[in-house]
């Protein structure tokens, strides 16, 4: 990189200089690793009669390419452009989700997909980053402009997609959206009493989901009490991981993976554990931790309140999703349909993750006066 001088003002160079390079490298490394893992998870799904392994690998690689392209393109946008894109994406995804309920095909008892010829798109995946950007903007406006109904508007922005998600039904995504929303409210300075109130409300809603949705009831029961015969998805995921041990059975040598349903999506982490060993699981978890904590810490230092909230929210979104997925895979949390960013197969999930982290990288790029305190002090010198 030394061949670019600091005075070179071309867009690419400017972008490279201002972007958070360690985070970018972590993200790219994770995405490329995901392509390798898809060889193992895809062959597991092939053994279960679901498609062809090579096809999973090729498609995963192509979608990862799209995801990286989306990541890079989005990360070049300015803060203002990110906000605009977020609003457009939010409205589009919300409309698509409503459309899904009307014309989407029912897969596994839920309508989550929209078909465009050979492509199936899951609008909810694209809604998530846009949702964070929009809520962050609303809350920051509330703190910036007196009288601006920040919290009320944020509540409305939550309820609209939540309503559509619960109609699908997709309890996992609903929980994720609500959790990120709550974290953003907390970060935006929600009074302590309200924070406690919201936590209680969240508990009540989870209880309601337990009562209303039979599959939620069963999964939580299975989590709390264990299952007869030990043949649920989670049991097999755990067996797969145990079978792998620290260093794994070796690529293609896994034996339990063929019993794991959704081996290439929700339970890719477990299959990866069986074939490549638990140390890769720890490595992936550490990379996620680095991306998320580094992202949040960098966001903390942002001077722009909107950037602060939006960037932290986006990193938090990825972190929570990864944590829930991995937690389910290792039996730490009740089973919940959620993908592991960049590792799980699925075009929508991959590209949406690219957009999410692209937003986050765009927001945390160094700009004149963007860093607080020190940034403020250096502003004049710039």
């Amino acid at each position: 990189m030394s061949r670019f001088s600091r005075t070179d003002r071309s867009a690419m160079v400017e972008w490279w200089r201002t972007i958070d390079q360690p985070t970018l490298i972590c993200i790219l490394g994770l995405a490329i690793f995901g392509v390798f893992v898809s060889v193992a998870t895809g062959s597991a799904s092939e053994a279960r009669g679901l498609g062809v392994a090579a096809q999973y690998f090729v498609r995963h690689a192509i979608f990862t390419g799209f995801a990286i392209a989306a990541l890079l393109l989005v990360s070049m946008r300015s803060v203002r452009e990110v906000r605009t894109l977020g609003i457009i994406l939010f409205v589009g995804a919300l409309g698509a989700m409503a459309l899904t309920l009307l014309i989407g095909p029912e897969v596994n008892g839920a309508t989550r997909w929209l078909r465009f010829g050979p492509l199936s798109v899951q609008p909810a995946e694209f809604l998530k980053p846009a949702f964070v950007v929009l809520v962050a903007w609303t809350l920051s406006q509330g703190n910036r402009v007196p009288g601006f109904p920040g919290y009320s508007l944020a509540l409305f922005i939550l309820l609209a997609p939540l309503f559509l998600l619960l109609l699908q039904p997709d309890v996992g995504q609903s929980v994720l959206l609500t959790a990120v929303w709550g974290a953003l409210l907390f970060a935006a300075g929600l009074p302590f009493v309200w924070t406690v109130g919201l936590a209680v409300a969240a508990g009540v809603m989870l209880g309601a989901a337990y009562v209303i949705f039979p599959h939620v009831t069963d999964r939580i029961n299975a989590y709390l009490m264990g299952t007869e015969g030990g043949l649920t998805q989670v049991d097999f995921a755990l067996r797969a991981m145990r079978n792998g041990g620290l260093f794994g059975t070796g690529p293609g040598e896994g034996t339990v993976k063929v019993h794991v349903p959704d081996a290439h999506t929700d339970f890719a982490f477990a299959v990866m554990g069986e074939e490549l060993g638990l140390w890769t699981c720890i490595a992936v978890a550490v990379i996620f931790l680095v991306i998320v904590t580094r992202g949040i810490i960098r966001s903390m230092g942002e001077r722009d309140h909107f950037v602060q909230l939006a960037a932290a929210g986006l990193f938090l979104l990825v972190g929570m999703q990864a944590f829930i997925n991995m937690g389910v895979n290792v039996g730490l949390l009740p089973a919940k349909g959620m993908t592991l960013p960049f590792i799980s197969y699925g075009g929508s999930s991959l590209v949406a993750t690219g957009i999410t982290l692209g937003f986050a990288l765009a927001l945390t790029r160094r700009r004149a006066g963007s860093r607080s305190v020190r940034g403020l002090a250096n502003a004049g010198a710039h």
Partner: protein
Amino acid sequence: MKRTARRVRDDWTTRGAGYFELRASQRARSRLGVLCTFVFIAFSALGVRITDLTIAVQADDAGRTVVADTATRHRAELVDRNGRLLAQNVDNIVLAANPRDVWDPVVVAQRIREVLPELDEASLVRRLSDRTREVVYLAWRVSPHERFEIHSRGLPGVIFREEQRRLYPQSNTLSHLVGYARDDGEGHAGIELGLNEEILAARDPIALSVDLRVQHALRDELSAAMEEFSAQAAAGVVLNVNTGEVLGMVSLPDFDPHSPGDPGLTTHLNRATGATYDLGSVVKPLTIAQALDLNLVSPETVFDVSGPYEVASHEIRDFHRIWEPIDVREILAESSNIGTAQIAELIGRERQRALFDRLGLLERLPVEIAGAARPLVPSNWGSLETATISFGHGLTLTPLHLAAATAATINGGYWVEPTFVMRAPGDPIPRRRVFSQATSDTMRDLLRYVVTDGTGGNADALGYEVAGKTGTAEKPRPGGGYDRNRLVSSFIAMFPASEPEVIVFALLDEPRGNASTGGYATGGATVAPAVGRIIERIAPFVGVMPTEPDMGLQLLAARAIDVTLSPQ
């Protein structure tokens, strides 16, 4: 709220927008720090859990493979005396589902039918849709390969249960003898119940006394006779007279031990050990043997049997009236009730009862099979009972009771405790002396005479020196008295007469006479031929050779002619 808003707006007008944003972002900074800490804690928990899984691997190596959940109890194999398998445990996989985990019953049913096309789709869908239940069973026996195929289709909610099932390779052939164990792993009938604890405790196969080849022949011939004479039921016992080992035991109709159904069904009644009958004239040898043993009569002692004989103001009759006086040998050969009753009168009530007690006829037999029946002993054993019991009425017995007691009259005089478990060589044989050797020798001769010159001629299997006795008992009427048209016809046989090895007892419940028997449904007409055929078939298996070599040749010649003459 309003006040706060106004205050904030006032502040804003005085201090400017930047101040509020700065304050908000400073607060957000510390709160994001809290969130970041939460993230760190959560991921740490994850790391601990992953590490824990790694350590668990080293501690518990069994976790490396999918371990079968075998819950049901192990039962030892049962084999016949030659080691042929009668009952064994097999691993069975049951296909089940939790309908609450099933997303789409129609899709799941279709995918299951790709592997198990014999299942009915509508019924599958119905069961898979029943969300009121936590477990529905879809198929009771699934092979490991089918299980793999279904598993690999990744159908949520579909579960497999591994269990032990009891398999009876001989199916109906030994349904009453072996009995059955149910899915709870416990025996519920026959030997499976009678020896339940032993079977659960044993590691090696348990050898029963039964000889599968004998059992097949017995069942075959009894089924044929039952069909030929339209009998309601049949029972048969083959007993080793010296060891008391039961070599065969059949009760018809029988049932499939794999799906026994309601134990109250008449098919479940074990007519050989679990039901008692007025057996009739087959009991007479016991009376004759006792009189001989007490030196009250000799085979040549003559009795007048011509007139109706009155005991306690009841008239005793014979089937055919015999006008001239006959000796004891003829009394047995012609099966005279009048003659036997007169002999019983010589014996007397007390001695008769004492003998029957020593022959085990007043108690339940101490056998390993569950459900052994207790004889119906008359409460008032008077002179009339002494007379009727002497020829087999008034004391109901199981076929096995009779076989074991009759064995004592021809095996040298011992009552040997019958058993369903194979006796090891050198094991002490529980037995007690009842008759003298001389009595036994005489009885062999007298019973052989029944077959050569009396009512038992139809049982004479060529070359095997069959001795025996017919029995034809009228069934009691529900209102009292006996029913001339409802008979229990039977035949007890032992061979070879010179040194009997095996005793065969068979009975038909309510047989109908046909043209070949001249309309007679008596034991001599219906059961004796079947017993003769049984002896012919089982003799080689119990180690009895035809007595004379040329007899054996004749037998072969007779069979050859049979083969030539019959179209097949």
